[in-house]
């Protein structure tokens, strides 16, 4: 689909143009400033940070804080750096994101194309799951994890995040599939496709945008989660967000701000990368239901 050139849509004067650009540049600086502070200070020595200006660029760049944060600094009792926790998070996030996305897609498919009595009630209840505050489910969830023998394990965290994400993923897919022509499903049925063949061969290939939206949404939420991580993990299943908190809040010794900055960037890096790589699909996916393409 191509769109006619917008160049001559509005004939803005050059003054307006200057104003718009000034404003935009101002906001760019405003939003980039925290990132600048984090990056520049993570490259300074501790002495330089103590003695100097937060906004100044580093005088002699050192990567030592990054090395420290990644593999050497003391977190909890051991001096392992954030590395093991980073991998804990990866092991938790990847299955949780794929499971919740897959189940959300399946729910959306069943709820729109295989309507059964009470489907709206069930959908309503699932929507409710999107709005329940995390704190309310903590104690019942702890009980259930205990009964399943998953307390304090990464498997338990995967389950918690999958269940908690299901409300949103179902909402995304249900709304997307509601606009998907039912005639296509019927045509495939006449062609002899089974329940899952229709799902895999007809719906999933047309779900690209919404899959990307759901994955980004779930990835950032699960990766950034602190409360469940803090509540349901033990020392060998701690996700990186909790480890970062332990690093920054440790009360012993000197505060190594440069290491903290580097650790914070390391923790945020995966979500940043996900956004940068697939952000444009995110916008496209959010728009997908609005206009028929």
């Amino acid at each position, binding site marked *: 689909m191509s769109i006619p050139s917008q160049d001559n849509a509005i004939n803005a004067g050059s003054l307006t143009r200057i104003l718009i650009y000034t404003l935009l540049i101002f906001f760019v600086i405003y939003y980039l400033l925290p990132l600048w502070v984090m990056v520049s200070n993570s490259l300074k020595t501790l002495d330089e940070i103590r003695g100097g200006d937060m906004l100044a660029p580093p005088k002699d760049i050192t990567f030592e804080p990054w090395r420290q944060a990644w593999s050497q600094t003391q977190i909890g009792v051991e001096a392992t750096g954030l590395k093991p926790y980073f991998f804990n998070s990866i092991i938790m996030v990847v299955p949780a994101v794929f499971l919740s996305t897959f189940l959300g897609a399946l729910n959306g498919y069943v709820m729109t194309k295989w309507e059964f009595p009470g489907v709206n009630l069930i959908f309503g209840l699932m929507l409710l799951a999107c709005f329940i505050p995390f704190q309310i489910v903590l104690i019942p969830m702890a009980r259930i994890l205990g009964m399943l023998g998953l307390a304090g394990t990464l498997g338990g965290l995967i389950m918690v995040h999958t269940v908690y994400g299901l409300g949103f993923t179902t909402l995304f897919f249900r709304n997307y599939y509601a606009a998907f022509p039912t005639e296509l499903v019927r045509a495939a049925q*006449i062609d002899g496709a089974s329940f899952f063949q229709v799902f895999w061969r007809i719906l999933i290939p047309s779900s690209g945008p919404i899959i990307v939206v759901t994955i980004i949404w779930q990835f950032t939420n699960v990766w950034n989660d602190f409360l469940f991580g803090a509540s349901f993990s033990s020392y060998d299943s701690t996700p990186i967000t909790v480890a970062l908190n332990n690093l920054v809040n440790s009360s012993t010794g000197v505060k190594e701000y440069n290491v903290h900055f580097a650790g914070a960037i390391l923790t945020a890096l995966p979500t940043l990368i996900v956004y940068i790589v697939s952000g444009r699909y995110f916008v496209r996916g959010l728009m997908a239901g609005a206009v028929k393409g």
Partner: protein
Amino acid sequence: MASLTIDQLTKSFGAVEVLKGIDLDIEDGGFLVLVGPSGCGKSTLLNCIAGLEKTTSGEIRIGDRNVEGLHPSKRDIAMVFQSYALYPNMTVRGNISFGMEIRGVDKAEQEKAIQEVADILQIGNLLDRKPSQLSGGQRQRVAMGRALVRHPQVFLFDEPLSNLDAKLRVDMRTEIKRLHRRMGTTIVYVTHDQIEALTLATKIAVLEAGYLQQAGSPDEIYNDPSNMFVADFMGSPSMNLIDGLLLERDGGLEIEIEGYGDTKISLPAPDTAEMRGFVGKPIVFGIRPEAMTDPDGADRTSPQIETRDCFIEVSQPAGSDTFALTPLGGKECIARLRADARIELGAFAPISFNMTKAVFFDPSTTNRIR
């Protein structure tokens, strides 16, 4: 190939009864067209035949097989949808072969079948395109190709041409007719278009509000409607339904109709036992516009032409004909005159009624009086 029989079929969505006892059949190789106003249940009936909707009661037989409870893919049918429903993620080739692939037909045979339908429908050069890269008419062909490749017992078409422009619709109509003649497969076809119904069908079924109003050959439906709904629904412009009074005069029957102002015209009515029951009562006189003509344009083979003076209010030239509006029975009636007939507006002109084409209805039940 097989016949199709529908027996006392009902279908409800929750408390709403959409089909209220349909009895209908079409012989092997027949072309059944379902027509009716929007929302009357045509698509629902088609979906019931396809097995896409579960019937509430009644029976559907394809050939001599009761298809109750049979999955759509096991009914030996193929369907063409109004929106074509082409799989957007597959090429034309993929769309056509999807069903065969699911059924596990081997590759070489698939390719042969694809080539065969591509030849019939002349879509060979489109096989590697995606549906989004096709024009409306091409999508239509692909949708038909997907149906043809199954070699089904019965084809089901749900308004397949309604998304096409007028010219393409005529072309595709001809093509469907040719295909039907060539394959001889039984077809059930839903349409809104009168002309489509009359040109394609070997049998037309008129539905209204979930009831079957009449089923019969196009000629029967057009010339011999069994009630006022069918008479009014089929044909364009539709049949004139004129209120009149049935009288006995000189031993024969006559229908008296109010004309312009205080004038009245009377026309002879057939003298049958059933008609006699309506003497002295109001009756509806139905006559098609083409049976009301200028005297020179009247059908010379008809044994009963009655010419009366009618007041012409408006005339609408339509190229090949001129339509004239005249008040009869309190309504504007349409007469179809030759294009070069000389008529004067706002004056009386002789109009010839071809009474062999006239039909009569009971206004209280709307049923035909024979």
